[in-house]
């Protein structure tokens, strides 16, 4: 079956989980879905294949604009506030590999977090926390000046030479608005999926505040499986060496 490449969600918060080895991992809890497909874009009509999905939550119909109400009424959909377009995984390749017959996604279909069941990594996009007008120390990690003896503290030094070039080069890092920008964090490891509660646990931080809307997609470029490095197959190189030695002695 053709499958949608991503899901919409909300950041719930961060916590810690224990992995198989008993180590603590920092984990972000994401409420992923349930989503509904609100519109389908086709190559024939729109020039590309994609679906528009919306995050199903408690939204009053009257709080959605009239044009959107019409959009939802067309297919008898629940009103949604947060919508995004996500791509569809190429139906032919995937269905051929699995031997399924091609079932196209259609408007009104549910998108649930189980689409990530077989995945190991996801990309998460959101809007980062706004920091307002931030200075250079905070915004660009400048070192700042000495803290005492009549110095200014968090100021930038020179921003260029004098008569030549008589201008400031483009992209000179200065203070200004920071945060509240679209940020994508790639290749967050999936640490757990709760299908019943629509929760997704990813290792690491996710942009935005708690309750912020995020778009979760399959990892665009997941890290390559490393081969041949110590620890990939053997757990303890010392033990492995001992085992090998014991094996030789038997022969």
């Amino acid at each position, binding site marked *: 079956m053709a499958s949608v490449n991503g899901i919409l969600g909300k950041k*719930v*918060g961060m*916590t*810690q*989980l*224990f992995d198989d*080895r*008993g180590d*603590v991992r920092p984990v972000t*809890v994401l*409420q992923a879905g349930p989503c509904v497909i609100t519109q389908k874009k086709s190559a024939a009509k729109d020039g590309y294949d994609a679906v528009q999905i919306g995050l199903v939550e408690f939204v009053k119909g009257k709080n959605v604009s009239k044009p959107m109400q019409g959009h939802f009424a067309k297919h008898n959909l629940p009103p949604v506030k947060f919508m995004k377009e996500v791509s569809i995984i190429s139906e032919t390749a995937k269905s051929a590999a699995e031997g399924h017959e091609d079932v196209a996604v259609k408007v009104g279909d549910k998108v649930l977090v189980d689409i990530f069941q077989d995945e190991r990594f996801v990309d998460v996009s959101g809007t980062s926390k706004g920091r307002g007008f931030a200075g250079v120390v905070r915004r660009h990690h400048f070192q700042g000046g000495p803290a005492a003896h009549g110095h200014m503290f968090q100021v930038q030094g020179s921003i260029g030479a004098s008569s030549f070039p008589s201008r400031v080069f483009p992209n000179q890092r200065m203070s200004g608005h920071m945060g509240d920008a679209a940020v994508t964090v790639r290749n967050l490891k999936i640490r757990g999926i*709760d299908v019943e*509660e629509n*929760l997704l646990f990813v290792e690491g931080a996710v942009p935005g505040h*708690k309750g912020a809307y995020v778009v979760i997609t399959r990892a665009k470029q997941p890290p390559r499986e490393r081969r041949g490095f110590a620890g990939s197959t053997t*757990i*303890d190189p010392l*033990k492995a060496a001992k085992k090998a030695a014991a094996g030789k002695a038997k022969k």
Partner: protein
Amino acid sequence: MSISPIMDKVLAKLQRTDIPVLTPGDNVRVHVKIKEGDKERLQAFEGTVIAINNGPQGTFTVRKVSFGHGVERIFPRNSKVLDKVEVLRSGKVRRAKLFYLRDLKGKAARLREAE
């Protein structure tokens, strides 16, 4: 700190209920699972609980003196590594954090047993 109801549910699932309630001053034996290759064995860590951090992801710190050197280990209460925790005896203490024990050794570092 207010946590969302979803977070409460997630954290409630993580809680281990088989670990006894510990108080500072307790003498405990902590059985720790240790993985060696594909084999697993237990190792006991016996000492005094000198600090407890509460909360959904609470920890407790156990201090012992091993061959003249103080050793402290912080155990997350919900850790999978813990096999079981035995309370051997509880000491009478008047504060929550017993960090003063770090400066004491020998007979001075003993705690009177609680009634």
